């Protein structure tokens, strides 16, 4: 029986997905106030997970040359150059207009902006924000909800993981993700996972042996913390309180609220500006929120979807 909140609202995802005696839910807390933008997380992730190169092109978006999260980039460090006190609303480029295209105006006013003479005596209170983005491992993960093959699954740790051996590359998950995280691998040629949906697994294999995810292990400044989500939420709240006490009133949390549109995320963030500034959607909602209603109103549609799933599965059988 489907519980009323399996697709929306607060919940502990692993027991909901049928795990008995599941370990505590695991996740990340990325504290961007101590991120030094070194990209160790990007590299450590690639080394551990055999993620191939993404692109060799300077993008001109400060020191970010990885562009965004995609199948070849499971951690992505954003760099935002910003004079403080100046509202800096920038929307991230989407993957469809990725590299190779003409330079995109990212709306980051300090980069490549029309040159202006800095008044001699005025000292700009400049900020350089850095933030390592990653799959959110949503409580209500639309990618997982729409996956017709069962390739995407909820792990015993409450994380959302792709099973490479099952994915048939249908791409439903790509459109479903409210954060634009999951993506099918496009290259390089010869890579065994080309065509397969790929994203952060929260190092599922390492977790099974009680090891920390590669990015969290490498992070030099503990900007990326790994642990029990419940405890991380408390730490995140405490950290915001500390920063507020120190006068950093911009500090805020992102993804820590179980009542938000995705039921809270397994990967939460401490940001120093609006989420949009970092290329994060301000109010993400799980795209399958209304699925139960749809089931009730049109049971046939649901059946058809399952049938589609069965077909999709069968297509993989040699």
């Amino acid at each position, binding site marked *: 029986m489907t519980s009323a909140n399996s697709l929306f609202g607060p919940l502990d995802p692993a027991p909901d997905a049928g795990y008995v005696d599941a370990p505590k839910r695991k996740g990340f807390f990325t504290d961007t106030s101590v991120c030094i*933008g070194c990209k160790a997380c990007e590299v450590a992730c*690639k080394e551990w997970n055999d993620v191939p*190169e993404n692109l060799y*092109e300077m993008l001109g978006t400060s020191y970010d040359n990885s562009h965004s999260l995609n199948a070849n980039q499971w951690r992505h460090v954003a760099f935002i*150059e910003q004079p403080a006190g100046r509202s800096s609303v920038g929307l991230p480029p989407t993957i469809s207009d990725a590299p190779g295209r003409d330079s995109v105006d990212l709306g980051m006013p300090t980069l490549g902006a029309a040159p202006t*003479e800095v008044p001699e005596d005025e000292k700009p209170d400049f900020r350089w924000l850095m933030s390592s983005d990653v799959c959110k491992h949503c409580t209500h993960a639309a990618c997982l909800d729409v996956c017709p093959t069962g390739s995407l699954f909820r792990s015993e740790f409450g994380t959302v993981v792709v099973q490479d051996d099952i994915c048939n590359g249908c791409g439903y998950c790509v459109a479903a993700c409210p954060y634009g995280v999951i993506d099918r691998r496009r290259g390089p040629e010869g890579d065994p996972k080309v065509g397969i949906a790929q994203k952060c697994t929260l190092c599922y294999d390492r977790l099974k042996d009680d090891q920390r995810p590669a990015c969290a292990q490498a992070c030099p400044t503990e900007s990326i913390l790994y642990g029990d989500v419940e405890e991380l939420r408390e730490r995140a709240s405490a950290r915001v309180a500390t920063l507020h006490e120190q006068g950093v009133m911009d500090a805020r949390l992102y993804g820590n609220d179980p009542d938000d549109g995705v039921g809270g995320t397994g990967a939460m963030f401490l940001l120093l500006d609006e989420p949009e500034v970092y290329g994060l959607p301000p109010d993400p909602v799980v795209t399958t929120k209304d699925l139960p209603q749809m089931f009730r109103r049109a049971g046939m549609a649901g059946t058809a979807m399952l049938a589609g799933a069965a077909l999709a599965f069968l297509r993989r059988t040699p």
Partner: protein
Amino acid sequence: MAEAHPVGFQWVMEAKKRGARIIHVDPRFTRTSALAHQHVPIRVGSDIAFLGGIINHVLQNELDFREYVVNYTNAANIVSDKFEDVDGLDGLFSGFDPETRTYDPTSWQFAQEDQDGELGQAQADDAGDTAEQRDTAAGMQNEAHGMQVGSHPPRDETLQHPMCVFQVLKRHYARYTPEVVEQICGVSQEDFLEVCRAWTENSGRERTTALVYSVGWTQHSVGVQYIRAGAILQLLLGNMGRPGGGIMALRGHASIQGSTDIPTLFNLLPGYLPMPNAASHQTLSDWIDGVRNPGSKGFWANAGAYGINLLKAYWGDAATAENDYCFDYLPKITGDHGTYRTVLDMIDGKVQGYFLVGQNPAVGSAHGRAQRLGMANLDWLVVRDLFEIESATFWKDSPEVQTGEIVPEECRTEVFLFPAASHVEKEGTFTQTQRMLQWREKAVEPPGDARSELWFFYHLGRMMRESLAGSSDERDRPLLDLAWDYPLHGEAASSGWGEPSAEAVLKEINGYEVATGRLLSGFGEMKDDGSTLGGCWIYSGVYADGVNQAARRKSRHEQSEVAPEWGWAWPMNRRLLYNRASADPQGRPWSERKAYVWWDEDAQEWTGHDVPDFEKKKPPSYRAPEGSDGVAAIEGIDPFIMQGDGKGALYAPQGLIDGPMPTHYEPVESPFRNLLHGQQGNPTRKEYRRSDNPLNPDPREPGAAEVFPFVFTTSRLTEHHTAGAMSRYVEHLAELQPEMFVEVSPALAAERGLEHMGWCHVITARSAVEGKVLVTERLRPLRVEGRTVHQVWMPYHWGQGGLVSGDSTNDLFGISLDPNVLIQESKVGTCDVRPGRRPTGPALREYVEGYARRAGVLDHEEGPVVTASADAQQRSAAAQDGADQHSPQQREDQ
């Protein structure tokens, strides 16, 4: 620090979490600035003015840690009244010889020590031929030698005597007011005073401040004096030898500290023993006395044992007391044989063969064109590296092949590229930046023909010895008598091509008793009678008790924060040098918070969290008997045990070529005249004036400012490693910073019409390099001497090879060197910046020469180095007492 040493930076973040205030002084806003409380942009090359300003602030406001200063530094020492400071001499100190552009430092000495009778022989030598000291980078020896001053100079501990160091220093820096700092450095008085306040308030009994620098300080024509200025400040504030204090040189290569300790440097032998000099070290006793400096305090008094142990390690049984332990086998240096001199010699056809071992000078050294033209004029070149680097392929794809200056069919250099073993394919020790040795285990065999350097050089030596076997030529004795017998292991051992045992080499470095083979527990056991041998005295103890101490890996969770059982630090596993200074003169911790090493009255010995850097049983109350020297002369209140007087040097009467106190000089290439003196740049700097090494003009030259109006500097990116051999060929790094770029401020972009992400090129008298434009407010124009100066920044990681390629920034620099250590000025120069790509092919040379011609430097018509007034030059020369005993030498390479 966050940029180039991110993992080291975790400790800064840790301190920040605990309430520390982080200040970052840097020409541009970097990833370090992003996490600092305060970023202070500064004009490149003006650091002595900035630090001098803080020193002045401390002295004028009496903010020094007086008890520390009086007892542990030479503040009370009385300087000779013949000494004259720069203010009266237009930027020169007394004793300047315009012919050689060096000083006779006789007048710099402490009072009563400038009479011949009071000086030791070595000291007299040292004080004498500074031209020779400059050529042989003698400053590097002083890194461990300390100053060779007498042990008991006259003192005034009230610090009131007008010629005491404290007062001399106070006068010297009196001109470095906040206004002057603002004028020279482009730092606002508000920012500057904030730094002064933070630094001084965080120093004293209860608190300490750490100073961290890197090649942003060393790569200047006044680089050593930058660091001296930092040292003076840290001594005045009582931050040396104490936990949380000190000066940290953050070094940039895995074992660059080790390669200085066990040097591959022309002027040094292991343990900072000098390479013998033909002029002054023709015998063993000359050489040893040159180090030992009879009459001074300190542990160099045992230099005889250190030197003889090295000779025994080199020549084993052949080295006997009768033949002076084969001292004669050591080749002698006669001047400057540094890497830049050598490269120019290559261009001049004086060098036949060149080895490059894990080094890519075609990209990494200053004046890349000179580097490559030098390589193209050799008989043979051996390159040992992991990848096919630019220094191995210059003959086919260097920029000079594009310009037609190197034609492959006409280039005679024979090139051998040997694949090298990586760090996981061999065992051995690295010495990291805090002098700690860590042993690496071998994980796997190297692929294919890749081999370790140990293998390569061992077998090269073996084969040469085999070829020469039976030679009766006397010159071959040093090779044939060499102790070159190391156990081999691995599969190839049976065929004679095995891997030499790195442990056996480390044991030889540590030293052992010749008769029994018992490994020494430390350099204290080294004898000067040939009964012990040891290859590097400061590393003695790394194999104490027959255990490889560098391989210790006791978890940090199971030991104190000092972590004495992780690896091994020289000397004698001391983690913090001169830590006697962490206790007060009576031997008690300065404060509970800062307790580190102290005198235990009950046990009558020094104890604490670290190995005391002091004789364990010598009480704080110990006073040296009259006439003592060496170790016995070190008193209970002399923490700086390697210095000739046991005191920290606020003033350095010896050992520095360019003056006893740091003074502000402009960089060799600067758009500004020296605000303080007629003397523009470091008058003693090493220059090689020749047509292939043009320098951008002095700002005094008419029109100079129009041709090269901007200042540029360079540094590393987190994502790359130095000359790129270990990052441009690695997918996961290359993609993170895939292209060469040039950072400019929005204002400069507007002035020069540079478009964000468009192309631009940067031009100097040496070359022009191109890159993408990154317009960013992380760089901003500064206001200096009443006008705006634009600073341009570039990373220097690219060359034509690798997964990502681009122009090499180091091609822009010429060669001018610090006179103390012969390190090049490659952190500052002047340039022009233009939109669009640079010309290619032969047109590039024409373009660059056009600039040089317009600047008036095409045919080495650069202005004079000595720009102090003629009157000042005369008075400086006259200030030295008596005739110059050293006749000036004519050298083309002044």
